[in-house]
């Protein structure tokens, strides 16, 4: 891998930047791999990278039906935080947070990971209790968390409407200073490049159409580019999870919904901290390009269409203008949808299955982006050793049989 650096940019300026190598190779799939990862999104690529880096498993293909990073990793609102409620989830997201903290350097790709702080506002007494509970739990789990009152919130984000006359006045907020944002596409590209450099084959335009199983053991996949063999197949396809699961005769407790987001036209810096509100459904941050990036709610019907309803956009705009009255004259530049796969307890599945050599990583709902490195790390462990890491053991498919549910509806950014 040719290293990226300022020096490299300067040196390459003498040859018009023409000598940079491909970020990942353009390849034909081989006949057989040790591990096939389905889905070149953030989680799939991170998994491939950590398989190669942590476990020395490099005979790996990442198969992608479209292009690298075309799914949720390139459609989310780029927020990274680890302030979840339950121990199990906290440990997983905090481990991910720690990976984020050195990831640009490790991948040699500037992910623009910016720990600008994440505020979660609360607007009523019950939210206040729940927030306090979460903050307290975070602190005992070693995750930075503060509970702010209205005055402190106003000081941190003066443009917020903290008036007591608001329909739902801001009563306070939790703050995770280590939370922030990262450039979402760069995460996919950075992991892809680093995995490729370690020998992983990234195959775009290669859709998996079937999973081959013989005697309870995975033997490979059918793709639009022919059969590819492997004794281990790891699925990381988010919205298409149900489709892939059905190829292996599995039914997972997953609902898929459209989730929308939008950006404003770019403006000069106006807000530093990420602001999220659950009760008044608004969450907003400003990108380095100057756009306000805004997360909308989910559409409550199920669907794979990556198209949401306009009414959701309206509801989001109402909330944003209410929470930030100075934004009213700004203009919506673009809105889009992704699809999110949601488990009944709003926590993910990172698990072996009853089919030997078949693994699933899914159900991240609206919270997958921030987990990308951690998810890849534990998934790689699970695949390489054919057993879960203690961090993802609680997130097995079995929990829906045992009842060991990890209910994170309260900590999820988007009510589902």
């Amino acid at each position, binding site marked *: 891998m040719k290293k990226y650096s300022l020096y490299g940019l300067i040196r390459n300026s003498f040859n018009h*930047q023409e000598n940079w190598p491909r970020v990942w190779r353009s390849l034909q799939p081989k006949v057989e791999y040790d591990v096939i990862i389905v889905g070149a999104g953030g989680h799939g690529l991170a998994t491939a990278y950590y398989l190669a880096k942590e476990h020395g498993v490099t005979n790996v293909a990442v198969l992608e039906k479209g292009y690298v990073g075309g799914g949720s990793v390139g459609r989310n609102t780029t927020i990274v935080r680890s302030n979840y409620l339950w121990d199990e989830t906290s440990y997983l997201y905090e481990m991910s947070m720690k990976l984020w903290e050195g990831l640009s350097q490790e991948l040699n790709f*500037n992910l623009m990971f910016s720990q600008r702080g994440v505020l979660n506002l609360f607007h009523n007494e*019950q939210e206040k209790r729940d927030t*306090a509970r979460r903050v307290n739990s975070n602190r*005992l*789990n070693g995750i930075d968390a503060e509970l702010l009152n209205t005055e402190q919130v106003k000081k941190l984000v003066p443009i917020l409407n903290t008036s007591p006359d608001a329909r739902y006045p801001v009563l306070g907020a939790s703050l995770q200073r280590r939370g922030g944002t990262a450039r979402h596409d*760069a995460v996919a590209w950075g992991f892809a490049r680093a995995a490729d450099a370690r020998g992983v084959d990234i195959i775009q335009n290669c859709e998996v159409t079937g999973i081959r199983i013989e005697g309870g053991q995975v033997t490979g996949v059918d793709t639009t580019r022919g059969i590819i063999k492997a004794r281990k197949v790891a699925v990381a396809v988010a919205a298409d999870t149900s489709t892939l699961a059905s190829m292996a005769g599995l039914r997972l407790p997953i609902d898929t919904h459209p989730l929308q987001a939008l950006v404003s036209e770019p403006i*000069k810096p106006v807000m530093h901290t990420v602001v999220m509100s659950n009760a008044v459904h608004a969450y907003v941050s400003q990108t380095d390009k100057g756009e306000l990036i805004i997360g909308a709610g989910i559409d409550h019907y199920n669907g794979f269409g990556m198209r949401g309803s306009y009414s959701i956009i309206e509801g989001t705009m109402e909330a944003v203008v209410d929470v930030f009255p*100075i934004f009213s004259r700004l203009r919506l530049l673009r809105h889009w949808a992704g699809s999110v796969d949601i488990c009944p307890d709003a926590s993910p599945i990172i698990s072996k299955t009853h089919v030997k050599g078949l693994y699933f990583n899914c159900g991240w709902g609206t919270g997958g982006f921030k987990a990308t490195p951690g998810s890849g790390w534990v998934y790689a462990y699970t695949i390489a050793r054919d057993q879960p890491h203690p961090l993802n053991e609680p997130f097995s498919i079995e929990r829906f049989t045992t009842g060991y549910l990890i*209910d994170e509806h309260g900590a999820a950014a988007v009510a589902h």
Partner: protein
Amino acid sequence: MKSPLDSSRSQPYRLATGGRIDRAKPLTFTFNGKRLQGYQGDTVASALLANGVRLVGRSFKYHRPRGIVGSGPEEPNAILQVGRGALTTPNLQATEVELAEGLQAGSVNCWPSVEHDIGAINGLFSRFLPPGFYYKTFMWPSRMWKTYERFIRKAAGLGVSPKEPDPDRYDRMNTHCDVLVVGGGPAGLAAALEAGRAGARVILADERRELGGSLLDGRDEIDGAPALEWVNAASRELASMKEVRLLLRSTVFGYYDHNFLTVLQRLSTDSTSISRPLIKERVWRVRAKQVVLATGAIERPLVFPNNDRPGVMLASAVSAYVNRYAVAPGSRPLVFTNNDSAYRTVLDLAEAGIPVQAVVDVRPEPNGPLPSRVKDMGIPVIGGHVIVDVKGTKRVKGVEIMSVDASGERVEGRRRSIRCDLVAVSGGWNPTVHLHCQSGGGTRYDGEKGCFVPDAPAQEERSAGSSKGSFALGDCLGEGLEVGAEAARAAGFGDGRVSTPVPTVEDRAEEPLKAMWVAPSRRPPVREHKQFVDMQEDVTAGDIVLAAREGYDSMQLLNRYTTLGFGTDQGKLGNVNGMGVLANHLGADIESVGTITFRPPYTSVTFGAIAGREIGGLLDPVRKTAIHRWHIEHRAVMEDVGQWKRPWYYPQPGESMEDAVNRECMAARNAVALLDQSTLGKIDVQGPDAAEFLNRVYTNNWLKLGIGRARYGLMLSEDGMVMDDGVVIRHGEQHFYLTTTTGGAASVFSWLERWLQTEWPELEVYLTSVTERWSTIALVGPHSRKLLQDLDSDINFEKSSFPFMSIHSGSLAGFPVQVMRVSFSGELAFEINIESDLALAMWQALMKAGEEYDITPYGTEAMHVLRAEKGFIIVGQDTDGSMTPVDMGMGWLLSKDKDYLGKRSLSRSDCVRKDRKQLVGLLSTDGTTILPEGTQLVDDPSAGIPVPISGHVTSSYASACLGHPIALALVKAGRARKGSIIYAALRDGRHVKAEIVSPVFYDPQGERQRV
């Protein structure tokens, strides 16, 4: 030759005659602080050009000087900050802002001025700043990123956000129509006419302030007369049809599923004053049976070295400025084209008396009727040539051209310079397929026309005219009439046949264009002077090649990596050329390199307009009980509970919240108090299978509940966790009435409907929400019975005839009521259900009658304390979606004899674990500390991080009647740990010692409520 320009000094580039401006209405405005003049009918762009202003902005990355390129929503460069103070709006396109008296506009993203911009230094370093350079650097040392980022952020962004709330108002309108016609150009007008004549209800929406579309910009003739006469006639006819609605200044910006489209109508275009009492903008939400897309086409620029210099404009824009605004965008124009349509611009300029220096045509021998006409006029047409450089920095001074070799891909021969101050370019036309694509339709590349045209529609939609790739005026009119009639027929009007002949048009035949995504030049794109593909995002042909070389070689990756098409113009000019450049580089077919995703909105839409009136107090409906007014009059402090406003407590003068709550609690325990409980969800359940239905959704048994009796019930979610609770009354054999928590009312109702409709359609049960119909007043305390007995009533309130958990209907103080004996406080209590219209009067009657018992109204806080003293849970506060009834100590509510929702889940291994969290009471051992709600509980206060957590405090209060604080908590295996000590870990690091006790602190035998 006489100058064609107006002799007045104020607008040196204003043509003396023509244009659709009102010369009788001059307007003064300022640009970057300089006072200028224009006319009513101008846009800011046309007024600036009339004043000879060429440099209007700086580019995003390199801060290159930029001028106006287009005349409509495609404009990439002329991005302005308009208005002042609370009325300032960033990032408006000069081409889209109508001129107004006193308007103040300024360039964005340049400092100290647009003429002298420090940021232009970036241009010198551009060779260090290839696309995506920021991914390759700013990584060392890692802690410096925050600093680097601060500068990056400062440099980014265009205009500035207002600093004050928006004083303007916005609005929404819902409407239906048979045929929505998008675009009021020739095709759209024709379609609207036909659909309207067929009797359909038609909406015609156009983004401009007047109808006519491209006809406004040109000098076409229809039926032997100026085309605008036909437009006027059409407008008059449409205006006379009562089922036709014309929406001007109205951009259809979104096309969603089920033919739902959104339209932004600009009602006030004056940016200098608040649009009161009128509203500024309105979003029309239109559900259309049929849609006609007559959205026209946007000219495609040519990509050549230094093609971004101020003075390089779209040929169509040049025509528009000359014809529509009577402005000469230059005095020595040159035209550069690959097609015949740009020759119309040559003719327009010539007609206006502006001498065209030359036409540079990439085609070797342009010989069609239009080029021939131009040649006949003596204007030099230089075939087989391209521009290889543009001279001048802040405005065009000339071009250098070279001839194209036989391959068409390289230049050869000597460079020739031509002096000019305006370069009108045309690379062909891109049909405006945005809405078609938003609706789900695809596009295909039409090689002959050299553009992407709409493929089969995905919804009830038809394209016509230029938006379909039919650029000739006659075709636009013909297709418009056809699809208008067809759409009307499909909506149920007429027979689909066109009712009138197609107007006659003298179309000059156009020869095929030579598609060209980047003009051949002396050097390969990477090494050439910048050839801009996307001007606003500063993306060059070289950038695209570099990105593709690095592997970002499909359109989607390329867009994201280079930000091509991510500007405020949404890539209206750059996207297709970008695809072409990528295809050229890959040696691939343009269709194979991916697709452009057209996302809504078509043009940017004001946040406030989307939000409409639903902000501030109207963000969410405020729900008030029928007794609300009384609470306010009696100084209640209100609490938001869901959408409801509820009295939290009623402080008397001088009282703190604590004082008031203590007083209210003591009144309920020792005398009589009353609570407005009307916000509880109420559902009327009727039908032959009502009892069976309740039996399935509640954990306990309902078949044997006697008529006139009440019972507490728990509902579980499918995973066995407590979801909601409430009291259910049986009014009759087939008639029940159930209550839910205040917050759960809507979700429980839809939960019940979901089961009835999707899982148990065989059950005949009817649910009606009666939350607002009935109000509920809880009368609580030892004197409650006496008070009721004092009132005139036909109900016997004695214990013997009115036992606990029963209900009686009758009259109370003259009001028809249902009285229920239930208690959420542990005291003797009666809940009075009454029609909401009468509730306030009932409340007042109770207050009056209660005077002698010192009756006290109490709020939600006292209600919480009273129930916590009794260990009664609040679903959502003491439960969190992960608690089973057994965890909550309510296993006695689980029927063993029947199945119910969630039952199966309760037998799962995790649900029968012994160390699950369980509801317990907590008493701080010092007897004085109130444990903060939400505090986590630990067994070992000295444990290091991560500290093992054993539970948390869910409810915590000072108890006036007990004289010490109490708390409810969920603690692992808590019930078995009664008497043991646990520590509340406060955020300041302190630990408060607490004893685990029973959650029932008061009257554990429940004697008081049964007296």
